[in-house]
């Protein structure tokens, strides 16, 4: 899918995480047993349907909640709300790693379609989300334009000063970066930013921030040429490496 011109997606309050195994809703910061949660979740499920309708998600809970007396009813309520929005609940896990997925035995008793039962025994859960994993933008981003996306963002064009990209995943800019980029916005410190020309602006990865000096044409004339660079977190700090 290509998106031109106006691109803006709202993240819901619930962190949405994705890995090879699929899409996960992270409920570890929620008070799952409270009445407020279920009431709020009804509304949030509606927002989620914008991204996830027609697909399946797993949810991440705190390990202690497994032993809570309200565990079964809460999970069923969540599943009901999701089903209302045409989202099916694939699994409940108590940790989120890029390679691991624990499936709780208790949850196996929940009614699942035949197709999902076989899927849940596989180690590799396919990503069946309707939303593409990477947003592809084929234009410049002008000052004041904002992209928010629960995945990777790839821009073929420049990102001008005061334009913003907030992505849960990586950000790749095939052009000049002068604006503000936040990769790994959900907290993923492995996220990275790759750009053809780092010429100012600010890069944030997860909870770290780095600001960059603008390169004017006079510096370029004195031998500063455009160099593709990779920006990531190494040893707890944001570093910039030449890509080649």
């Amino acid at each position: 899918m290509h998106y031109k011109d106006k691109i803006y997606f709202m993240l819901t309050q619930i962190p949405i995480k994705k890995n090879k195994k699929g899409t996960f809703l992270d409920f570890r910061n929620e008070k799952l047993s409270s009445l407020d949660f279920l009431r709020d979740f009804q509304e949030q499920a509606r927002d989620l349907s914008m991204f996830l309708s027609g697909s399946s998600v797993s949810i991440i809970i705190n390990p202690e909640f497994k032993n809570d007396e309200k565990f079964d009813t809460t999970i069923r309520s969540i599943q009901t709300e999701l089903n209302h929005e045409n989202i099916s609940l694939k699994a409940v896990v108590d940790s989120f790693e890029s390679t691991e997925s624990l499936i709780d035995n208790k949850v196996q008793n929940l009614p699942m379609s035949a197709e999902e039962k076989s899927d849940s025994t596989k180690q590799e859960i396919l990503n069946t989300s309707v939303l593409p994993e990477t947003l592809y933008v084929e234009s410049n981003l002008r000052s004041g334009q904002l992209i928010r996306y629960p995945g990777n963002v790839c821009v073929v064009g420049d990102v001008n000063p005061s334009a913003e990209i907030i992505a849960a995943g990586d950000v790749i800019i095939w052009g000049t970066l002068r604006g503000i980029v936040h990769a790994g916005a959900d907290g993923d410190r492995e996220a990275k930013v790759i750009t053809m020309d780092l010429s100012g602006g600010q890069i944030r990865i997860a909870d770290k921030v780095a600001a960059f000096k603008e390169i004017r044409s006079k510096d370029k004339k004195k031998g500063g040429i455009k160099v593709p660079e990779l920006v990531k977190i190494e040893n707890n700090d944001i570093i910039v490496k030449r890509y080649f």
Partner: protein
Amino acid sequence: MGNAKVIVVTSGKGGVGKTTTTANIGAALASLGKKVCVMDMDIGLRNLDILMGLENRVVYNLVDVIEGTCKLKQALVKDKKVPNLCMLAAAQTRDKTAVNAEQVLGLINELKEEFDIVLVDCPAGIESGFQNSIAGADEALVVVTPEMSSVRDADRIVGLLEARKEQIGAVRLIVNRVKPGLIETHQMMSIEDITEILAIDPIGLIPDDEDVVISTNKGEPLALLDSNKAAGQAYRNIAKRILGEKVPFMDLNKKVGFLKKLKAIFA
């Protein structure tokens, strides 16, 4: 007169020269034989009438026309010097909320019956004043000065104009208050720096010229003076380019002395 062109002169940032540009390009186009109307959309803070030297001739303004207090013809003020140039002033005792985009569009359509070109002087900002001003526009001229703040605001404006691609066909750049000396010594943004960010084609470069201030206060658009004053000539060139003529850009660099050239080799 259905083939009229409506051009909005905008910038985002205030004080970069929109009104001066509107007055001068309007005057230049009229001198080339076109029937031109310059329209001030800065309701509450009108300036176009001052620059045209017509402030004490304004009886009715565009808000009066929209509200039906008068007919359009009664609000149009004919220029003192150039016969086919008219001005439609803004109201000073009201503010931007006095009109909406639909009303402005209706007014512009009426103007298109009478004139070849309508130049709309847009107020600074991106809210209703701006939105109303672009209501009937076919083309846009974005005015910037070679400063980062002006360029960033212009970038925002261009983004908003590009969102209306079906309506506004051409968005072109005018760089105002260019100081070639400072550009040469890398103390001012170059034209390439500006176009690299804005990614739109320049239609004119206007040198910083104190004659502009003088003519503004006199109420005589510089473009009308016959002399070879650089800024006036630049405006006249822009008018020709708007009409489709290919005019090479003026060389704004002052003659560089021998010593300076020598220095440049060793810098």
